[in-house]
């Protein structure tokens, strides 16, 4: 039985096409993936991401606990700040990528992926230490992502605080139409935006309030289809595709959220070894040089020899060409490297490119001091 978010009825009323995703029944599109994608790049879009997990970790030793369970340096988080991070297994493989937010000195709000939420909660519980409380809150919180260059304009009319005082990768508690919310200035699209957590049953009221404020744009309801193409244009990894328990953050290009100097954490010893020995493969972005659409699991070749595998691929609505991510042997990771992608029984010319693919995202303009 698939789980439904608090916005399920609203999706049906909006004519969404619903699909199963990570155990949830989710909207994949409303009007169309390309339209929704471009609305987020140009104006603003609204996503139901209530399937995402929430875990609260608090107590006098919460910081120490998270330092050991995650790879980024949690001690650098001030209250009200958040960071992107990964959780590794003992082999250095990525159990999940997630956001860790600091709500108080001894209180953290963690957002794992929907498919991994239960696994991460169980993993945290298995490593629990005294003076730390770990609370699974996935079904307490609905989550709505407001994304796009006009997001602040819309949200500002609904919250009592000045949005300019909430920089990128910061979060705070607030209210929307009397509903208590956590507002986080983060997203998965490359545009400015907010992720708004609200009590499960009050989430429809928050959605309606945002849609009402954005009516004149209009604010476009967006599904998982656009969420995927938007994130891929930014090279944001998707757990289960680009990263998983058998890939490490260094080969995935996530070394920037691995702080080897901060002290011990699960997977650290393996990563030190990987680093000393050198990487064998690297996740790179590539674009097709001819018409076609790369998809996950397609083979990457170099002059006929197999040198890698595509982990994500799509038609890029912004760039109007096929783009993708692939693990390739390290000698082929340089931008400009010519490769071939096997699509069915044909080889398509491709080349490694600098990422993100989409370089004009408004997120670059609001990016403050990240930790």
């Amino acid at each position, binding site marked *: 039985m698939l789980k439904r978010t608090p916005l399920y009825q609203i999706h049906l009323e909006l004519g969404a096409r619903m699909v199963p995703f990570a155990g949830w029944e989710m909207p994949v599109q409303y009007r169309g993936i390309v339209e929704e994608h471009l609305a987020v790049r140009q104006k603003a879009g609204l996503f139901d991401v209530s399937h995402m997990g929430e875990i609260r970790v608090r107590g006098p030793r919460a910081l120490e606990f998270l330092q050991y369970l995650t790879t980024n340096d949690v001690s650098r988080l001030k209250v009200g700040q958040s960071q992107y991070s990964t959780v590794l297994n003992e082999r250095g493989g990525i159990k999940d990528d997630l956001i860790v937010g600091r709500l108080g000195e001894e209180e953290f709000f963690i957002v794992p992926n929907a498919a991994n939420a239960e696994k991460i909660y169980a993993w945290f519980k298995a490593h629990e230490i005294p003076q730390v409380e770990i609370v699974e809150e996935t079904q307490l919180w609905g989550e709505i992502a407001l994304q796009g260059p006009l997001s602040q304009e819309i949200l500002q009319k609904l919250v009592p605080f000045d949005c300019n005082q909430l920089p990128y990768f910061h979060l705070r508690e607030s209210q929307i139409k009397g509903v208590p919310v956590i507002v986080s200035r983060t997203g998965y699209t490359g545009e400015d935006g907010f992720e708004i957590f609200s009590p499960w049953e009050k989430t429809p009221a928050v959605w309606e309030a945002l849609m009402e404020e954005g009516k004149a744009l209009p604010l476009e309801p967006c599904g998982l289809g656009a969420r995927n193409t938007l994130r891929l244009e930014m090279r944001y990894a998707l757990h289960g595709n680009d990263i998983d328990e058998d890939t490490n953050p260094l080969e995935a290009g996530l070394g920037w959220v691995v702080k080897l100097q901060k002290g011990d954490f699960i997977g650290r010893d393996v990563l030190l070894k990987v680093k000393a020995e050198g990487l064998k493969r690297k996740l790179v972005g590539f674009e097709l040089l001819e018409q076609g*659409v790369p998809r996950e699991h397609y083979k990457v070749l170099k002059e006929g020899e197999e040198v890698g595998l595509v982990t994500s691929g799509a038609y890029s609505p912004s760039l109007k060409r096929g783009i993708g991510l692939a693990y390739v042997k390290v000698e082929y990771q340089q931008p400009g490297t010519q490769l071939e992608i096997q699509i069915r029984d044909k080889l398509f010319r491709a080349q490694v490119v600098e990422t993100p693919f989409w370089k004009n995202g408004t997120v670059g303009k609001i990016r403050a001091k990240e930790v």
Partner: protein
Amino acid sequence: MSAVPKELKYTKEHEWALIQGNRAKVGITDFAQSHLGDIVYVDLPPLGKEVKRGETLLVVESVKTASDVYAPLSGKVVEINNELSKAPEKVNSDPYGEGWMVVLEIINPQEEGELLAPPDYESYLSTLS
């Protein structure tokens, strides 16, 4: 409601065929294009390719996924719609007109009886939603 023109024959896999003599012009139905969403690439077969009824004739790529288009009839590909390489979105905007994909030279005319007439395809569609 999906459009189902009267002059065409259909398959349960949502292809249409316009049969004229020993030739059949082939495309995908309004229902199919609407379900696939934005079509961004049509991987057309080479001229001369021979296919049996029900085999993969070509592949249509939408933003979301790659979908096989099956041969509604056994035949040989004698024309392809090269316009689609420049404007694959014509499959969305005009699935029965400019969005046509190939013309087959029919090998086995008896198979035509296995295609669905418009009312039958319409009733089949009504069972899907």
